[in-house]
């Protein structure tokens, strides 16, 4: 049985835990500055928004910038397959606010912005209500900000740009947000799940955090099980849990699995047999050439068509380009159209050659990582569904699409 941490406490169906219940269950948030940073460092906690950057290093670089920073509590959750940030905001808002408060006190922040996807209504309501309950001066000054409902809105420079200028698109780097972010102030952009872990590490310490985890991994992670599983939804598992075990926790596979989309739309397709053995841990997955991303585990069954799934997701990602950088805007559109042609009219050699050439050319040529994420995804599709791409008949629309269907 997995030890629940972020999601322990009252049943999730009861909605947001009140401040009173939260403090009764966990005690007040701890506040000794030096102890906190040390604990976060020793915990080895990494970011849960997708990039997996070490939290302590990020905090050090924000603090090294010298002036009072801004903290962005990132609940934009633009990834269509991911639900975990929404569920956490809706049910455990005070855990997230505790983490934001700890970050604000450790870094002596001037300002906190709670940046929640404008389409995540329940999460917004829960976070705003929780914020209104908080007596701490840092949180009384905090403001809510509605993140545009776009895939890139949660990217750190897009979040900074939105809070500075109401334009939710990424900007060129340098400067990085941690040196010059909102209004020129050094800015910490941290995912809501990451901050919730900070709240518990602050209370119970690094050793406690590391006492969960399997196969050498530390802590717990939130996952969204999607697609062809019997009970799709959000799970908390110990880091290092295998994909097969996570699928079992989600009620088991519905039908015989063909492939798993690991990490969401910026993640990778992995052949099901190979995927099931993989441990869900950032370090271990990176070593295997994959990523945990935002924690999506999307299963498709052998009755689904990997080519059509890929074409649908590429069309989505191309449409989510913020249209600022030519290679991303034109490149992803062209790649998406080549995928759609193969899906709709059947394989042709020209499009296969274009997919190979364009994907190597487009990668690394955007101001943000949007094109890179889309290319990693596409290249994983070409590897995992290589035979299907090479022999695809003209059959688009005739197949059900468990993973991509949920984006609508």
């Amino acid at each position: 049985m997995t030890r629940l941490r972020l999601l322990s406490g009252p049943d999730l169906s009861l909605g947001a835990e009140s401040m009173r219940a939260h403090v009764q269950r966990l005690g007040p948030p701890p506040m000794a500055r030096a102890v906190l940073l040390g604990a976060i460092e020793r915990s080895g906690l990494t970011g849960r928004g997708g990039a997996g950057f070490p939290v302590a290093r990020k905090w050090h670089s924000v603090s090294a910038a010298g002036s009072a920073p801004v903290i962005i509590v990132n609940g934009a959750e633009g990834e269509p397959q991911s639900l975990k940030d929404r569920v956490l905001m809706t049910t455990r808002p005070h855990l997230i606010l505790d983490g934001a408060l700890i970050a604000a006190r450790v870094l002596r922040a001037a300002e906190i912005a709670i940046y929640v996807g404008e389409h995540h209504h329940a999460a917004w309501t829960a976070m705003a209500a929780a914020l209104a309950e908080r007596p701490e001066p840092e949180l009384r000054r905090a403001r809510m900000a509605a993140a545009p409902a776009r895939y890139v809105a949660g990217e750190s420079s897009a979040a900074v740009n939105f809070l500075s200028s109401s334009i939710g698109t990424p900007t060129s780097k340098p400067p990085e947000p941690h040196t010059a972010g909102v209004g020129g102030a050094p800015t910490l952009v941290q995912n809501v799940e990451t901050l919730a872990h900070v709240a518990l590490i602050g209370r119970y310490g690094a050793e406690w955090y590391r006492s969960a985890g399997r196969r050498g991994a530390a802590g717990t992670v939130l996952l969204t099980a999607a697609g062809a599983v019997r009970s799709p939804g959000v799970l908390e598992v110990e880091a290092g849990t295998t994909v097969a075990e996570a699928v079992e926790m989600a009620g088991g596979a519905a039908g015989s699995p063909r492939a798993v989309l690991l990490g969401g739309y910026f993640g990778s397709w992995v052949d099901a047999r190979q995927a099931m053995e993989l441990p869900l841990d950032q370090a271990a997955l990176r070593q295997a050439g994959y990523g945990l991303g935002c924690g999506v585990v999307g299963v498709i069954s052998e009755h689904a068509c990997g080519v059509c799934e890929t074409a649908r997701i590429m069309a989505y990602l191309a449409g989510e380009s913020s249209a600022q950088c030519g290679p991303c805007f034109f490149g992803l559109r062209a790649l998406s159209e080549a995928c759609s042609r193969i899906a709709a009219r059947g394989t042709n050699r020209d499009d296969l050659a274009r997919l190979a050439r364009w994907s190597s050319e487009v990668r690394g040529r955007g101001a943000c990582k949007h094109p890179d994420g889309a290319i990693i995804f596409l290249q994983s599709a070409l590897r995992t569904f290589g035979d299907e791409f090479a022999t695809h008949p003209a059959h688009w629309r005739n197949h059900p699409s468990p993973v991509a269907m949920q984006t609508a």
Partner: protein
Amino acid sequence: MSNDLSLTVDRIRCDGRGLCAELLPEMIRLDDWGYPIVAAGPVPDHLLPLAQRAVSRCPVLALALRRVDRDQ
């Protein structure tokens, strides 16, 4: 190689005018949509003057020569 200057493109500024690829074909080619693909790594010494000229002629100031940050 005796310097550590590399060509960088501000991808948001770049409009795909294509002058850079005409001025420095040794290091820059254009993709199918007219946007520059720049050879990675430091600019060889003998191409530095040409690289500097390409930088100064970019009509939208998107091309730059920057010291490579080894950490990144």
